[in-house]
């Protein structure tokens, strides 16, 4: 037996010793190993099974003591035994405790993963679908990232994006689709009768607009209907599009009302969204904005049902959002809206152009009765007052409070208004509706609160009511469209009542935290940006609603009130709208009255009605006495200001004063004593009396002497509040300097033109 034979024996023994104690080995070709032919079974050294010491412990295996000996050396000689033993005794020296390297993971419900769970993956990888039907990075068979080349790719920062590895896994961890629908449908609460009707309506109508008033549970009806269709196999995958602020609300409702459906909210960075879009879910929830951003990257044909919550978002077919939605063409299309018609009947037509193409045409706008007839099979609307008893809702009491601006507010308001009108006039034909809206917004902010002094008649009223009229146990919602200019500043003043601010500036998590804090803690007031919180939220813990300012659209205000006045509200809800008199708010209020009338007539009753009261550019410009620049001038007898005679000029000023609200007395045309008009009006602060002198110098300049004369008259009359000198031309600089700081108001030709337009006075 040479050395190579020894090594053979050793290898056999070394491998077998720890596990078995074989007594012999067969060597079919033993001739090649041993010189004696015929022997094919030989004894091998009988090693004892390694004995573990008594204190052996798997946790601390270093304590292991292994002893082994050869009890049947067989044909081996002593040298063989020594060689084997010397090898075995080295084993304990190599042994170490098994190392645990830690753990990681993710809580999908709380959306938090352990740190460092991001992975850089090339974006393009997610755009490829493999032959196994999965995104390539997710397919274990053909993942391109296993290769060395992927390591190179991952180092290229420009082409790679950070994704959470556990987000990648989530689709794989989902239960198989359609595997868990055999149980009876259970719902968390019994549906109301009218809701059952709504569910049936949706299930039976592939093209439907559910226009129940807010607070009636439209989303729940849609979820239950969608659940039925998926379980019936009529729908494989649905898409719900809604405003961003209510994505979480939809998610929670799906969790409660359709727990067996796999629902995913599409959000996060682009890569994460792409994964979600392509992952196997029953329902994707997405905001309008996100859909618009992602529309080119998603497999739009995968959806056979789409639900558009607040479908009025697509009322303008030319917006990018509406265009994106039109690219999705599922068989079943449902729209949800408590206010499908906000302004014009064309909006309803635009909505149906998606829900039920070719049902309506824009020509139908002239015939509301025909519109009503055509959409009635696909339209269902129930008002809260109709189902109030079933919902066991309390009453809704609406109230308007008209307040007088405080001194600093009034001064600031008038100044801003006058300067604003002058600025608008400077734009001439280039003026746009945005210029007007900007001025309106600025004036409304002053009506809410004067920024320099902090004076606010509305805040004063609100605090007074909170201290004296509202039970301390009751909670209050305050809506405004100006979270930065109004809500944030007044938040400090309301701190003693316990106040939270809900605005679009907050992240979704913070928004939820604010709502949770308001519902559960001692906070009594929730200040809400009407844009961020006017839709979808359920805040029935509050039963007082204050509109600190009023949105153009009454439907928006109704929706905001619907946060508190909805299913689950058992108390009487008090809605108070704060207005200021003699301001732009009063003018807007008149417009809103007409629009509210329109809304009720068209949507609630779908009856024929006059459409003359629609909001138009003319209405907007008219708030400041301006004419829409696009509108051709009317064929009237008006003539340029410059063409008026001095008497016609005086008559025009007289007419203007009456239009403003003054009682006017004209003096004799000659020997007028330096006064052309006396004007008087009653204000809350007392009677305002003016003396007015008119100087029709179309191309001239009024010098300081005319101003001095008028000031002399003013000084001699104790009953006159102020003197006004009006010209169709300009004033000299010395005249302006003289009037400065005195009760003298100088109105030049440019300013006069603006005022005339504002009060719709035409030179004739």
């Amino acid at each position, binding site marked *: 037996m040479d050395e190579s034979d020894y090594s053979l024996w050793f290898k056999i023994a070394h491998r077998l010793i720890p596990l078995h104690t074989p007594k012999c080995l067969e060597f079919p070709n033993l001739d090649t190993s041993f010189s004696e032919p015929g022997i094919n079974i030989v004894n091998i050294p009988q090693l004892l099974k390694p004995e573990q010491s008594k204190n052996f412990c798997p946790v601390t295996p270093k304590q292991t003591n292994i002893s082994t000996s050869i009890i049947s050396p067989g044909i081996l000689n002593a040298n063989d035994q020594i060689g084997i033993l010397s090898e075995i005794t080295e*084993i304990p020296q190599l042994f170490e405790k098994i190392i645990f390297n830690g753990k990681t993971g993710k809580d999908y419900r709380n959306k938090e993963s352990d740190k460092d769970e991001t992975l850089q993956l090339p974006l393009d990888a997610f755009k490829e679908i493999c032959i196994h039907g999965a995104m390539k990075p997710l397919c274990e068979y053909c993942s391109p*990232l296993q290769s060395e080349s992927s390591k190179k790719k991952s180092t290229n920062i420009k082409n790679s994006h950070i994704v959470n590895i556990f987000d990648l896994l989530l689709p794989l961890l989902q239960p198989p689709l359609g595997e868990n629908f055999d149980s009876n449908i259970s719902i968390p609460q019994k549906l109301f009768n009218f809701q059952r009707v709504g569910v049936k309506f949706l299930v039976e109508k592939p093209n439907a607009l559910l226009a129940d008033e807010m607070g009636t549970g439209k989303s729940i009806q849609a979820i239950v209907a969608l659940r039925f269709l998926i379980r019936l196999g009529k729908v494989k995958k649905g898409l719900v599009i809604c405003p961003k602020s209510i994505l979480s609300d939809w998610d929670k409702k799906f969790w409660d009302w359709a727990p067996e459906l796999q629902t995913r909210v599409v959000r996060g960075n682009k890569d994460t969204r792409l994964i979600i879009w392509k992952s196997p879910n029953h329902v994707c929830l997405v905001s309008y904005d996100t859909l618009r951003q992602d529309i080119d990257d998603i497999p739009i044909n995968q959806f056979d049902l789409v639900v558009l919550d607040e479908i009025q978002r697509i009322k303008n077919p030319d917006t990018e959002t509406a265009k994106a939605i039109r690219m999705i063409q599922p068989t079943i299309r449902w729209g949800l809206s408590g206010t499908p018609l906000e302004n014009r009947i064309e909006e309803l037509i635009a909505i149906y152009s998606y829900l039920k193409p070719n049902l309506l045409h824009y020509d139908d706008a002239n015939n509301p009765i025909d519109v009503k007839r055509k959409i009635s099979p696909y339209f269902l609307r129930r008002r809260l007052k109709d189902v109030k008893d079933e919902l066991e809702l309390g009453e809704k009491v609406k109230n308007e409070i008209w307040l007088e601006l405080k001194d600093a507010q009034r001064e600031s308001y008038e100044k801003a208004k006058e300067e604003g009108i002058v600025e608008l006039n400077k734009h001439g034909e280039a003026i746009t509706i945005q210029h007007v809206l900007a001025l309106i917004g600025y004036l409304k902010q002053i009506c809410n609160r004067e920024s320099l002094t902090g004076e606010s008649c509305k805040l004063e009223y609100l605090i007074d009511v909170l201290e004296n009229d509202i039970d301390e146990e009751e909670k209050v919602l305050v809506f405004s469209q100006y979270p930065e200019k109004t809500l944030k500043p007044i938040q400090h003043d309301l701190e003693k009542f316990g106040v939270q601010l809900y605005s679009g500036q907050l992240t979704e998590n913070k928004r939820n935290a604010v709502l949770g804090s308001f519902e559960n803690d001692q906070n009594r007031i929730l200040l809400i940006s009407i844009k961020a919180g006017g839709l979808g939220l359920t805040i029935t813990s509050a039963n007082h609603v204050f509109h600190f300012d009023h949105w153009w659209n009454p439907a928006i205000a109704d929706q905001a009130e619907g946060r508190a006045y909805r299913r689950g509200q058992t108390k009487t809800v008090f809605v108070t709208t704060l207005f200021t008199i003699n301001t732009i708010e009063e003018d807007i209020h008149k417009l809103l009255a007409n629009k509210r009338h329109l809304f009720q007539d068209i949507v609630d009753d779908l009856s024929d009605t006059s459409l003359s009261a629609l909001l138009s550019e003319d209405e907007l410009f008219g708030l400041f006495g301006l004419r829409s620049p696009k509108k051709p001038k009317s064929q009237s007898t008006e003539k340029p200001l410059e063409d008026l005679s001095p008497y016609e000029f005086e008559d025009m000023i007289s007419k203007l004063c009456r239009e403003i609200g003054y009682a006017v007395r004209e003096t004799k045309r000659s020997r007028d004593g330096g006064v052309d008009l006396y004007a008087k009006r009653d204000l809350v602060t007392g009677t305002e009396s003016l003396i007015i002198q008119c100087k029709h110098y179309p191309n001239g300049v009024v010098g300081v002497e005319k101003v001095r004369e008028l000031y002399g008259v003013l000084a001699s009359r104790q009953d006159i509040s102020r003197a006004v000198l009006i010209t169709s031309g300009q004033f000299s600089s010395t005249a302006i300097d003289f009037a400065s700081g005195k009760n003298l108001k100088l109105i030049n030709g440019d300013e006069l033109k603006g005022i005339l337009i504002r009060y719709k006075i035409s030179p004739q």
Partner: protein
Amino acid sequence: MTTEKFFGFLTLNRNENENSYLGALLVVDVMSRPIEFRVTFPVKPTAIQRPLYGDVLEPYIGVELCGKQLIESVDHKLDCVIVNQEYLLEIRKDINCPVIYAQRAGEVIEISSTESIKPPGKKTQINSTSGRFQPIVISSSPREPEDSISAKEMVERLFEDIDLLEPFERIENALGVLVSQDERFK
């Protein structure tokens, strides 16, 4: 409202190529939707350690090293833990909820082991009332023989809609992706 019950599916996955083990725990709700997923980094016994641990190697890694850590790390309170390897029943000593070992009925031929020290836990067959899934047999740790009885109602309810062994396939798929995508799991 839906009762919030959470089930943990605990497994120890062996990577034959890498000679390593990954412990994984998937927490699902009554609809089998994933709620939480925890996984260990690879445990790699050496060529020396493997024979020396012998038969206790996988129980030691599965229970002491991985299972215990995973159970402790979950955020949701588990109502029942289901394992697919009998030795993982030992995790029962570290958690205060029933732990059951689920097998497909009829798939495993039982061979009594003379070396077995502990008596086997009580076995109970569960049928899917929907008839969609093959029956399963559940058993519990000898430490807590009543577990299979106390967990039976919960498991039966879950088994109406969900194949109790299916989540282990999901875990295996997910671990496959982890190993292929993330160097730390190789």
